[in-house]
């Protein structure tokens, strides 16, 4: 995905940093279980999912500390749950489908090289989670159709990505399904819209598709700030109805602060 769903580290206390980092390292280890090569797909967005689902369902935690290549000397503490494994499966699934999409799109070398490496673990994940796999494929398909049509319909594109995230956020189909879906949907729409805003300049230069290319007037992130807050508002209303206690301060840090990390400081270039 895009790496926008991250915490703002300087506002976390030492214990929160330990939990957040431990969750991220746990996700990395869970990815390793799906196949060593899966670890390169690691994203913070999916660490948020692991943290959220672990908080909601509180499955038993396994914790430890291990060395890894980027940290060869000092063992890195990690913790993981069944929710971490789920988030890892979703991470692989998303990365693989995105690579296939890129490969179809422009035959990118990167996608052609990497997609085959992820194929087996992604197929395993898709067999384990068919509903989510289908949602990822159909949403990326819809986005490709919109792109082919060169549509300026930002909402339709954002809604497609929202639908994808909505499905991923529903791990177990129980009484929390609707708020989880709304949370995923709002975050997904936000991610897509922010990405379109931040990429606009480069997309224009390179003649790439961007749903905002056709927008009238000066398209600045600041102009879209109220819309972005509205999209996050949908996510936040759903989030606040969930009975989250464990790590909730970190989750709120992400949702109310960290998601703005990539947003420009003030009026400026797009």
């Amino acid at each position: 995905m895009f790496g926008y769903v991250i915490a703002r580290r300087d506002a976390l206390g030492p214990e929160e940093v330990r939990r957040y980092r431990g969750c991220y390292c746990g996700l990395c280890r869970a990815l390793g279980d799906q196949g060593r090569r899966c670890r390169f797909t690691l994203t913070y967005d999916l660490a948020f999912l692991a943290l959220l689902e672990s908080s909601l369902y509180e499955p038993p935690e396994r914790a430890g500390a291990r060395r890894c290549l980027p940290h060869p000397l000092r063992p890195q503490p990690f913790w993981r749950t069944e929710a971490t494994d789920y988030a890892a499966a979703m991470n692989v699934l998303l990365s693989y489908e995105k690579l296939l999409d890129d490969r179809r799109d422009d035959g990118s070398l990167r996608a052609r090289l990497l997609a085959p490496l992820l194929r087996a673990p992604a197929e395993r994940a898709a067999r384990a989670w068919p509903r989510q796999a289908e949602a990822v494929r159909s949403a990326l398909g819809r986005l490709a159709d919109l792109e082919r049509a060169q549509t300026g319909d930002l909402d339709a594109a954002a809604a497609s990505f929202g639908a994808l995230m909505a499905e991923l956020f529903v791990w177990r189909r129980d009484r929390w399904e609707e708020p989880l879906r709304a949370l995923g949907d709002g975050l997904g729409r936000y991610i897509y819209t922010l990405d379109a805003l931040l990429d606009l300049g480069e997309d224009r230069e390179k003649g790439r598709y961007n749903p905002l290319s056709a927008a009238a007037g000066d398209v600045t992130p600041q102009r879209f700030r109220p819309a972005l807050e509205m999209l996050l508002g949908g996510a936040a209303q759903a989030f606040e109805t969930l009975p989250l206690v464990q790590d909730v301060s970190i989750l709120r840090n992400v949702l109310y602060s960290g998601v703005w990390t990539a947003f420009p400081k003030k009026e400026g270039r797009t």
Partner: protein
Amino acid sequence: MRDPYEVLGVPRDASDEEIKKAYRALAKKYHPDLNPGDKEAEKRMKEINDAYDRIKSGQTGDTGGGAYQQQQSYGSGGYDPFGGYNPFGGFYGWQQQERREAPDEPTELRAARNYINAGHYQEALHVLSTVEKRDARWYYLSALANSGAGSRILALDHARRAVQLDPDEPTYQQLLYQLENVGRAYQQFGRGYDMTGGGAGKVCMGLCLANLLCRLLGGYGGIYCC
């Protein structure tokens, strides 16, 4: 029906955190997985879930709404009467007002209005797209139809245009207020959190080729392990 605060065993002025903690503790105790076949536990679980939902949706059976409601301020959202979770569901109550017709209303706008009232938003958008003269009324109806069709960004934009073109019309202001309320609720929930842009630009989380190769060759990930 029992008072939901009593069911959860918390005072009426309990904080969000206290309510959630109480709910979780009870849900753990009476969870069907831990009490297989226990009808009484099943009944209790249902009661606990209902109590939690009622507090969260503000249906606490008293007029004050409890301290919890005052803290939460959900804006227009929440659980809508149609049973689904829909933070943008605030409109349903409004459609009544849309039946009012202005005497000089062009046929297309009247048709769009009728479609919106009936919940046929795509048809409304189609009719609106055929209208060339885009005045405040057009933007207002377009905002309603787009909102119903799930096009939140465009709905907000068009509601704003309607107010710009006709700043004195209260229904336009009301619609804009209602749409902006979702963002306002966000700001309220996130009070105390730093919402300014970090200016970090696009965060490259390990999709740079160099990192990618490094990870692939090494076979270990976590370059970005904080």
